[in-house]
């Protein structure tokens, strides 16, 4: 497997230089009336686990040591929208 990630700082680098931290958790404000404990529990323990494009956090540990947010298609591993 050789997935390539276009790091905005370092250029096109192999995925083995990165850690994947999984899907991007939602940190936005709670909807009105939501139980904060329930919302936190969902956020910490549950994943949407989509079969398709997914926003993810990757850490470029062997390069710029910065976090990237990108979209990976979970079925094909196509990566784009790296920021």
């Amino acid at each position: 497997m050789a997935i390539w990630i276009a790091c905005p700082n370092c250029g096109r680098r192999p995925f083995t230089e990165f850690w994947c931290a999984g899907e991007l958790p939602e940190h936005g404000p709670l909807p009105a009336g939501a139980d904060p404990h329930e919302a936190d529990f969902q956020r910490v323990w549950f994943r949407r686990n989509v079969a398709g494009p997914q926003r993810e956090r990757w850490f470029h540990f062997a390069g710029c040591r910065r976090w990237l947010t990108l979209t990976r298609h979970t079925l094909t591993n196509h990566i784009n929208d790296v920021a």
Partner: protein
Amino acid sequence: MTWLDFEGRQVPIRAGDSVASALYRAGVRVFSRSFKYRRPRGLYCLTGDCPNCQLTVNGEPGERACVTPAQQGQRVARPTGWPSPDRDLGSSILWAFKRLMPVGFYYKTLIRPKAIWPIAERVIRKLAGVGDVPMHEPPAARERRNHHPVWCVVGGGVAGLSAALAASDRGESVVLADEGTLGEKLPPGPARERVDGLVAVLRGRSNVTLLERAVAVAVYEGPLVPIAGEDFLHLVHPRKVVVATGAVEGHPVFPGNDIPGLWLGRGAARMAGAHGIAPGKRMVFWGATDESLEHLAVLERAGVSPAAVLVPSALAGRVPAGRPVIADGSVVEARGSGRVSGAVVRSSSGDQTYPCDTIVVSLPLEPRDRLLRQLEATLVVGAGDVVAPGASLDKAAESGRLAITGATIPSAASAPTAPTREGCLCLCEDVFTNDVRDAWAEGFQSTELLKRYTTATMGPCQGAMCHGHLKRFVEAKAGSVPASAPTTARPPVRTIRLEDLAAGARYPLEYRTGLHHRHLAMGATMEWTGVWKRPERYGALLDEYWAVRQRASIMDVGTLGKYRVAGRDAVEFLERLYPCHVANIKPGRSRYALLLNEAGYVFDDGLICSLGPEAYYLTVTSGGADQAEGWFRDWADTWSLDVHVANLTGTLGAINVAGPKARELLASLTRDPVDSAAIPYSGHREITVAGVPCRVLRVGFVGELSFELHYPRLESAALWDALLEAGRRFDLKPHGLEALRLLRLEKGHIIVGQDTDYDSTPAKLGLDWAVKMEKPDFVGKIALERLSRLDRDKELVSITFCGPRAPVDGAQLVRNGDRIGYLTSSRLSPVLGHGIALGWVARSASRLPDTVVAQDSSGRYEGRVTKGPFYDPEGVRLRA
């Protein structure tokens, strides 16, 4: 004269010889013994597809002789057969007992009595298999070479070469790989001329790399095509892959279809045309394609006379006059014991036996499409025979060009092939038609299940010969598409050496501190801790231990995670990140802190040192240094705070100076004050020690007066040597990790990762005091609130054992016969004289037991459950 060494005998070789052709010319007919029944096997495909000619070449087993060039002095041997491959005593016995050894017989028989299997296993292992794995290290480690072309073309036939040329014409770079030497498999003729012409053009192109004798073993995501060459493991990272691996003539299945003397058409034609050796004297020729007529001509020119020529009636008119043509005839059985002696031919006029020494079969092509099926179609495109089997040379060249331009390549369905009769279906694994039928009757009713149960298609040829038969067998039985779907094509498609898999990965990553060579010079036993190599001990453990407890000692703690966090929002950032208060840490003071994840579980710990407004110095455990940096940066991004995180782990070294005499030792090396007013317990300060600028931290991990010196890494050796020299009058001894583990255990200090578990909350660890729930927010706070509603199921406790002995780390804790926990750290305490441990104990009815029993293989240990440190519980010594 040049020669190769074949089992101790000199076999002459000529220019252009493969190992197979040299041996065949010298009269070798049996090239191997089959995997299970040890049936004799001879040359068959000569295209590197079948398993029949796998020999041991220069000690490497599994080399396909037909695609291995013959070289002067090469050592070649057949790995199987006893007493010799030509005459194998096991063969006739095993064949006679075939009925008793169905597929998977070792799961069904030889089970009882129990003692029989170990003996049977040894016998079976000796009988089965095709050679010995060389256990010596390869003479030179393999290296990788990366290529980043626009195109990777696999296969150097007309289609592949035409694709490479089309790409090169467009100014796009190409890497083309072929597992042989380009053109070598083709006998002289129009195809060979075309290939030679294309190769001559491509060799002059600067944007084309031709890799010969280089085997593409897979197409991975990326795409990535690993190609095992003679010199390197080539890792090709193209934008797109063209698979032009061609096709192989259909493998006929009838009784006796594995007897030496039976050839595929291309194999026989290559032997006759390219190597100039007639495969036999008299042949029964069975052809079904236009191509087969060319093979017939090549064989006749080489002097092989046809006893019968079986062709479809449509082709009958194109066979030269005077040949014994049998229209629509087919071979239904090969006769012979060890060598072909005749063929039974079925035609409209019934069955007739023709005596012959050779049977040549050239049936419609089956694509070698396994590379094509390993990745989504948008990145991999096929060209030539692999998508349109039996294409003419012009069509093949055109499909190569179309592969580059992105036009749709017309595919052609395979022509109907001969029926699967009783016979050897899978040459690699010795699976016969009746084995597959039996497996079907046993309920393995799909291609995937039949594959796994019978192992058909799983051998070195990876189904090149038998996959079509297996698929058609299931189609005939089940008819349904899912059951007869092609089996998954998995890497590798060709055999690959272990050294290729390990190419470029010779050395594990080893982190070293600035004192690594000092440790080695002092005779330290080193151990791995994560990616770091650290001293476990220098000599006797107790010498190191007592040096700390009674005198003075130093330890290299340069592996600690060390960070500087600064910026306008530094306080805000750390307040949100850590569960303790940060804003009220005064400059010059430090605080022990836990790091919690969002689930409220402890994943690291360390110190927070305040350096003044808007700047902090942080430490975390050695193992967590990299992870912690990611953690800091992730939250800084998430919260959009104005902070800078500098990872100083590799920049700074650290030495802990510990023991009752530590202050006296330090004072002898510095003019700065080191008294408890200047550097109180949990204080820190910048001082100069032996000329080295240090930040000194008063810490208490080992439970004695300790000064942790953090300094520029390049000064490591100078500082270490100065401390050793000045420490002589205190009989200073450095201590390693094992002494550290014992010293901190006496203090009841946890090591995150060893004493903590994946679900260790601060409360379960007895560290609630390090969590301030009154803070407005911190990572993990809401989870801790949630968890506080639940009863604590277990706690990390201190356990005191009675006698001067201790169980092993990880020993089970039991009470009234029930398992109630386990020890995470357990040692005999030299200063206390009895065993001590930390361990997880389950609470029952909301309380902890007073006593527990630890069990390990050495016996039972009665223990009392206590709280807090075992040694110096008031902390008088470390605050001195």
